[in-house]
């Protein structure tokens, strides 16, 4: 087996596998992305639900505080009682319509929480301008009494105050609009306020631990969901100001520094808080198993395809070997046949010579001897054709041009056929016009002519006539035409006569022969830079052969 079919087979195996692998990887990464998106979407949904719960709770708190701050008598003792009795409150405060703080009055005796409140929220309350603008513009209440006080708070000036003010203006809900966020101590505090119809502003600072624990109590219970086998272990957390963890829940413990799988900002007034969720990374990128499946699949396909390729290769190789064996067997036999043939021919020729010298030449013996000689010629032509055909099959035919006068070779061959032609009564007309020396392979020319003449002898002997023409075209092309008056060639089949083993119509195929004569004529002519064709003929057949030689300068 030559190298190229092997390469072809390897390519046939490798290319689909490479394509398959590439497509598989593409598909896997697509699936990975989809899975990741799905997981993130799922996690974000979960966080959105948590956010909704927290927002609802804040709503509840707002309505509670609305109720709580609906106070129209500002007696210190009763206000203190309210603060003392309500665990949700850190402190109440009241500001009169002239923006003076009424409770807790800094000039009066203060209890501990009042003092702490004033200390931390003094800048909020004492600075009247700030207080007005911050509280009223920021909350933007639908209160008609507050006309003309809508100057927007300059965040920079607010930040310049001694206490740190961080407030977000986004996501204002109409009912929760009166929340205010104020920072002191451990973090931000929620302050709810409302302006009473009497012009007093009543505010309530919520107890931070209480409202945080209230919110946490509302968080959804995830432990049950996580018990189901398909669910991923996760951890969710509330983070304040980006880093400070307020609360976290869930089984999973992420390694520190890992980016959250999903995160969500909470709406005002909890906008300093962020919800985060962590799940194991391999849960988000679940395509790993897919890679193993893909690799396994590829290995299996490789094995299957390679096996197939090896099988084809072996089968092909065996066929090639068998064909080679056949050819070499034919070669061997043909060579072996040549030795006895040599002897038959040589001794017949020697005998012929003896007869020539015999004084009374015996006609019978001469005739018999001629049969032996002609048959041995025929046998050697046959063997020559078989060997040429085998060599042509192996592509080991070559041309060895010699300077010859083509007509001499033609006459020689015709003379060799003379006894046979005479016996069959075939009249031979020679129109020879190739007397110039040409560089042509004489053996090849002989073989071509022998095949053409024996063709006439086999198929067109009824015509009793044969013409051989030679000529030289363009100084270096030998043209040889052999015509007969036999049955001719059927129009349809005429292109097939040069195909090997073509035997023509039924009656013709009765004739002896191997069916490779004309094939060899064409192969040899082509090998010699020419061609063999069917020539025009009024009756019978005509074969035109051209051989390209080198003109003798």
């Amino acid at each position, binding site marked *: 087996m030559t190298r190229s079919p092997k390469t072809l087979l390897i390519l046939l195996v490798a290319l689909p596998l490479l394509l398959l692998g590439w497509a598989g990887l593409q598909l896997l990464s697509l699936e990975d992305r989809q899975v990741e998106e799905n997981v993130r979407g799922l996690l974000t949904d979960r966080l959105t639900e948590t956010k909704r719960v927290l927002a609802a709770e804040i709503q509840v708190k707002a309505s509670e505080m609305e109720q709580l701050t609906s106070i129209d008598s500002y007696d210190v003792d009763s206000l203190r009682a309210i603060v003392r009795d309500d665990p949700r409150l850190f402190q109440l405060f009241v500001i009169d319509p002239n923006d003076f703080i009424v409770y807790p009055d800094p000039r009066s005796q203060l209890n501990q929480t009042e003092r702490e409140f004033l200390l931390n929220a003094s800048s909020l309350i004492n600075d009247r301008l700030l207080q007005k603008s911050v509280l009223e513009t920021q909350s933007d209440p639908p209160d008609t009494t507050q006309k003309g006080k809508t100057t927007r708070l300059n965040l920079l000036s607010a930040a310049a105050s001694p206490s740190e003010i961080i407030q977000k203006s986004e996501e204002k809900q109409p009912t929760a609009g009166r929340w205010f966020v104020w920072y002191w101590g451990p973090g931000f505090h929620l302050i709810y306020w409302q302006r009473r119809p009497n012009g007093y502003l009543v505010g309530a600072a919520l107890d931070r631990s209480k409202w945080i624990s209230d919110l946490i109590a509302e968080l959804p219970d995830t432990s049950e969901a996580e018990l189901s086998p398909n669910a991923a272990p996760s951890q969710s957390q509330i983070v304040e100001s980006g880093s400070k963890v307020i609360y976290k829940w869930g089984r999973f413990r992420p390694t520190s520094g890992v980016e959250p799988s999903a995160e969500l900002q909470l709406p005002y007034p909890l906008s300093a808080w962020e919800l985060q969720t962590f799940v194991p990374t391999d849960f988000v990128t679940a395509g790993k198993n897919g890679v193993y499946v893909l690799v396994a699949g590829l290995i299996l396909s490789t094995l299957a395809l390679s096996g197939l390729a090896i099988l084809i290769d072996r089968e092909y190789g065996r066929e090639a070997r068998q064909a080679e064996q056949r050819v070499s067997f034919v070669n061997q036999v043909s*060579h*072996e046949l*040549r*030795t006895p*043939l*040599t*002897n038959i*021919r*040589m*001794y017949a*020729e*020697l005998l012929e*010579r003896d007869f020539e*010298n015999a004084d009374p030449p015996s006609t019978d013996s001469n005739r018999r001897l001629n049969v032996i000689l002609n048959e*041995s010629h025929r046998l*050697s032509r046959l063997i020559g054709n078989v*060997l040429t055909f085998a*060599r042509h099959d192996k592509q*080991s035919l*070559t041309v*060895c041009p010699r300077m010859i006068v083509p007509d001499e070779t033609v006459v020689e061959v015709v003379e060799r056929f003379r006894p046979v032609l005479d016996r069959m009564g075939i009249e031979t007309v020679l129109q020879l016009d190739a007397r110039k020396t040409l560089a042509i392979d004489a053996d090849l020319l002989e073989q071509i002519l022998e095949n053409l003449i024996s063709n006439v002898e086999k198929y067109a002997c009824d015509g009793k006539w044969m013409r051989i023409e030679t000529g030289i075209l363009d100084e270096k092309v030998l043209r040889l035409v052999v015509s007969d008056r036999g049955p001719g060639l059927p129009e349809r089949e005429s292109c097939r006569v040069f195909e090997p083993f073509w035997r023509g119509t039924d009656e013709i195929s009765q004739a002896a022969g191997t069916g490779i004569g004309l094939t060899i004529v064409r192969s040899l002519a082509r090998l010699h830079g020419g061609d063999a064709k069917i020539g025009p003929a009024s009756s019978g057949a005509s074969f035109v052969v051209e051989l390209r030689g080198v003109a003798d300068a």
Partner: protein
Amino acid sequence: MKVLIAEDDFHTREGLADVIRSEGYEVVTASCGKSAMRMFEVSRPDCVCLDIMMPEKSGYEVCRMIRQSSPNLPILLISAKSEEVDRLVGFELGADDFISKPFSVREVVARIRAVTRRCFQLSVEPPAPFQMGDLEILPAELRARRNGETIELSLRDVQILELLFRRQGQPVDRQTLFRHAWGEEYLPSSRTLDQHVSQLRKRIEIDPKSPELIQTVHGVGYRYEQTDDEKQPPGRA
């Protein structure tokens, strides 16, 4: 001239020997590569015909060994293998010519004659041409010429004509002629010589029925007599 024929097939060997002998050469034969080498050393032939596929040593090997000692000796390879590569190997090893089986007797004869001509050309003293009647004999070319027409001759023909020419005017008896041209003492039958002469006459005589160059001397042998009008030109000069 002596020709060594090495060929393992008995009939081919004997047939070839017959053909070459009938051309006027002395023939020694060998049936395998080894005996070919031995015969070559013993008999020192002027030309060697080697079959390629032989037992013991192949024709290629024998050819190579002979070439080492005798660079100019003509070597003819004979083989049933006739593919180009076989010929090329043969020529590579120093063979002068290649005959593929089955060969015709005429082909062998033509090639042997061609080799002989080359030998004569290579030899220090090629035999000189001589004139018999209107026929010019060119021994070194194994040819005769008359009025521009060329006649092919065998070595034996040349030898017969040469002896007759040397003893022109005198009858040469059959035994002498046979010894000279066949190189053998014993004359198997008178017909061998007579047949050969008759064949030769057919080719060189203008009218073989009444021969002028080779005349029969009944009971003795043959004679070449210079005709009067030819006596003058080259012989004396």
